């Protein structure tokens, strides 16, 4: 229904045959950060400053209004059996959820689903109320103070419209980031999981049909991860905020009704006496 609602920006005949998205394979990432750089360059995002966090090679820390790809560096050092140590890198990005919390929360309609089925913030419509920010179950979208509007990965909407792949996947030297129709990517991802598991390695998909899709649905940017989601700062069970509305409205109306009854009772009773 949402999809149909938001199609007023494009003619239905322009809809591509398939939803487009990313498949990010953590087992192939070498942590070169080419995706971060390509994203910044193409989208003309300002610098976040030169700072060291001390957290492995991760000096970006997280996705933000001006960082739409972020490479996480996970060092799992095993002191007893050093050979069991792992150093993993994951290029994180906006998940472009099927049920997007940010889009549901947006009061201006600035956040829409575009013809490629990706969640897009229209920068000329957003008024910076910031309600999408705490409504994103992945902590992705953020308000950029200088622009005064919410910003996040557009899945290179501009490049997609010209039929070219997004900057990050284009620049990825190991094809850890793949771009394409979601159904094709999911087939590739499942084959890759099978290959890895046959070789005795831990591997599973995040954002295809696991527990994490309970609320937000399948993710248009999904991942292959060789460990639990929280290791890569992904929530194992992301929540969709609109799920909490019935209980919240019930509480609001019960509270307001109770107060109105108290007031009515006290003012009516004394009124009769007067």
């Amino acid at each position, binding site marked *: 229904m949402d999809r149909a609602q938001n199609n007023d920006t494009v003619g239905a005949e322009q809809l591509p045959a398939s939803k487009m998205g990313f498949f990010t394979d953590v087992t192939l990432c070498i942590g070169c950060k080419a995706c971060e750089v390509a994203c910044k360059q193409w989208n003309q995002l300002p610098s*976040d400053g*030169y*700072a060291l*966090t*001390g*957290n*492995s090679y991760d000096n970006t820390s997280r996705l933000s209004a*001006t960082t739409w790809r972020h490479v996480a560096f996970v*060092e799992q*050092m*095993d*002191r007893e059996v050093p050979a069991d140590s792992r*150093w993993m890198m994951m290029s994180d990005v906006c998940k472009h959820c099927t049920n997007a919390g940010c889009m549901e*929360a947006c*009061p*201006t*309609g600035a956040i829409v689903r575009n013809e490629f089925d990706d969640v897009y913030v229209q920068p000329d*419509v*957003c*008024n*910076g*109320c*910031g*309600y999408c920010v*705490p409504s*994103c179950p992945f*902590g992705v979208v953020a308000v950029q103070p200088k622009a005064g*509007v919410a910003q996040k990965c557009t899945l290179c909407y501009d490049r997609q419209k010209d039929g070219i792949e997004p900057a990050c996947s284009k620049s990825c030297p190991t094809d850890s980031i793949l771009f394409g129709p979601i159904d094709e990517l999911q087939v590739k991802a499942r084959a890759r999981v099978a290959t890895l598991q046959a070789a005795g390695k831990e591997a599973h998909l995040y954002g295809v049909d696991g527990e994490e899709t309970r609320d937000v649905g399948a993710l248009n940017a999904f991942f292959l991860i060789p*460990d639990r989601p*929280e290791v*890569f*700062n992904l*929530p194992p*069970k992301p*929540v969709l*905020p609109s799920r*909490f*509305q019935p*209980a*919240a*409205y*019930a*509480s*609001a*109306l*019960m*509270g*307001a*009704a*109770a*107060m*109105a009854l*108290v007031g*009515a009772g*006290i*003012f*009516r009773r*004394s*009124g009769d006496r*007067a």
Partner: protein
Amino acid sequence: MQTSQPHGEGYAAAGNFSPDAVAASMQRGDGGFGREQQTYFDHPILRKAHWRWEIVAYFFAGGVAAAGYALASLARRGGDPADAELVRNGRYTALAGSLISSALLVKDLGRPERFLNMLRIAKLKSPMSVGVYTLVAFSTNAGFSALEQARIDGLIPLALPGFITKPVGALTGVPSTALMSSYTGVLLSATAIPIWYTGRRHIPAIFACSAATTGVALQSLLLALFGGSPRTAKKLETVELVASLAEAALLLDWERRAGDVAKPLFTGKRGSKLKTYTLGLGIALPALLNLGSVLSRKPPKKHHRVRTILTSALALYGGYVLREAVVYAGRDSADDPRAYLRHPE
């Protein structure tokens, strides 16, 4: 529970250098995690709202305005001529409150000049959109009734005709006032921030009760300052007593049920401020001071002005502290990845 918060105020402006993060890494010594890794460097998973004092004040002013409008309507319906001052004050404060609320809401936007973009669509799924239309409807009604009052007071020769104001009031008066007092609680509850969504059964009702407490306190204060009947004052004290005790009960119930996830609100500096100024000085003390006159059966003769001014000011400040604590506790909750990972519902 260890929570490092490398993303404090001004994080975006100052870059992401965090002495805390460096110190934690140095302390670990091996520069990484073992296989038992619980979080990613304790980095927040969620992102906190940018909301500052404007939103806290907006929540507060909206509640006070809603209660002012409700009291004026109920008192007028009750028909006690002694309540005429309350009706007048309530109507004017409702309009003033809705104007202040709108100004605060606009000021908080990243692009205030685009406020009207909120009105280009109506979206029931978004509590922010529902809230904006609530504010518009409430302000309209508050404006109509303030104009009507100004005509009664002889300030203006004629107000808007009834065939315009009455249908609008009949259709939107009750729902917009009810939502105005409490939708801000829904706004917080329907997010991904653990302390807010786990409090979804409590926060909106607490805000409704607090709107009544603070709204009544403001009306009592105005009557004490500018004169009013002692009988009205007693009725207000009674409403305030019931509303504030309900508010306290709900707050304590929330604390009891929430457990760890509500720690940013009920413990530490914020917790003691909440308990001192909201529960203690804002609710318990006024309740004790007013209990005698509320329970007394004799019709009140004297207006205890000093006591009313003191208890009302305390109740108003307590209500502000409550909104501030609940809004700002969301920041710490968003910054704590463990709260979200435990996923309490």
